[in-house]
């Protein structure tokens, strides 16, 4: 499965969830090929997608939050996994190809998930080339569309 098919599957399987997608190719490709209002496309801050999602999940227990991370992003943010136990309303997906494709496909360390976190973390293996996609929309547009979706759906 390639990256965009994996993201489409997760998005379709979680129709009422707010989605956070980590920066890099995940965010770029998702913004270019899917682009919906309920997704917050990150542009920067490596390793922070999960923390943003957890901040949302902790402050609104009725909101369903989905976080989609790349494996290298996930490794960088792994110190935050300890807070996952407080976020029952959050689903965490890691797309793993063991490459940092956006920076030239360097091989990255393998992802190791401690047993206590295994039930919170879903790893999906992805393969295939990267698509040449532009930077996502402007930060203000991304934020406003996302916040509007939250408001319209009474999540705020």
């Amino acid at each position, binding site marked *: 499965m390639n990256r965009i098919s994996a993201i489409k599957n997760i998005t379709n399987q979680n129709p009422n969830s707010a989605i956070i997608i980590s920066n890099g190719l995940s965010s770029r490709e998702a913004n270019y090929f899917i682009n919906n209002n309920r997704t917050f496309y990150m542009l*920067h*801050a490596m390793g*922070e997608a999960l923390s943003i999602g*957890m901040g949302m999940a*902790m402050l609104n227990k009725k909101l369903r939050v989905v976080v989609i991370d790349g494996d290298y992003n996930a490794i960088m943010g792994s*110190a935050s996994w300890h807070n996952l136990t407080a976020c029952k309303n959050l689903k965490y997906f890691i797309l793993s190809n063991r490459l940092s494709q956006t920076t030239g496909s360097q091989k990255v360390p393998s992802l190791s998930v401690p047993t206590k976190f295994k039930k919170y973390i879903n790893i999906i293996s992805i393969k295939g080339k990267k698509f040449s996609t532009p930077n996502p929309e402007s930060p203000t547009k991304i934020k406003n569309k996302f*916040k509007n979706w939250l408001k319209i759906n009474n999540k705020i």
Partner: protein
Amino acid sequence: MKKTKIFYKKRSSLILLSQFVDKNFNNTFYVPDSIFTKLIKKISKKTICTRENHAISMSFGSKLLEKKSLVIMQNSGLGLSIDSIIGTFHLYSEGCLIFISNRGRLPWEEIQHKKWGRITKKLIKSLGFIFFDFNKDGLKAVKKGYNVAFKKNKVVFIVFERGNIDE
């Protein structure tokens, strides 16, 4: 002989400060620091974080829901936080209030804190962020910082010296 600088406790500051935090914030994301031990104990809604950059991002997540979350950290945590602050609050033009301790300013403090004591305010300023001095203005600094952060959507630090609220 070099004059020793001492930072004095602000009168009633701990109680008023914790009341202000409870009244104005939905949550506090923090990394423990000895200067904030007593304050953190008094704050009702709080979440301990493993790293300061994650505390920043969790606070940003809550801001996407239009809720306000305070961040508390030691000055060394600023080093870890810069990219998170720039990639979240700054990039998406949202306001954030951060309580930061200024460890390393007193002569008896341990050597590993000294450099941070010298550079914290300069670093905040050089990043283009705003800070208010709790040592100088007490709770007024916090109120001013809160207004600038959330009315003007800026990243604002409140700098606490050792002795202001901890001893």
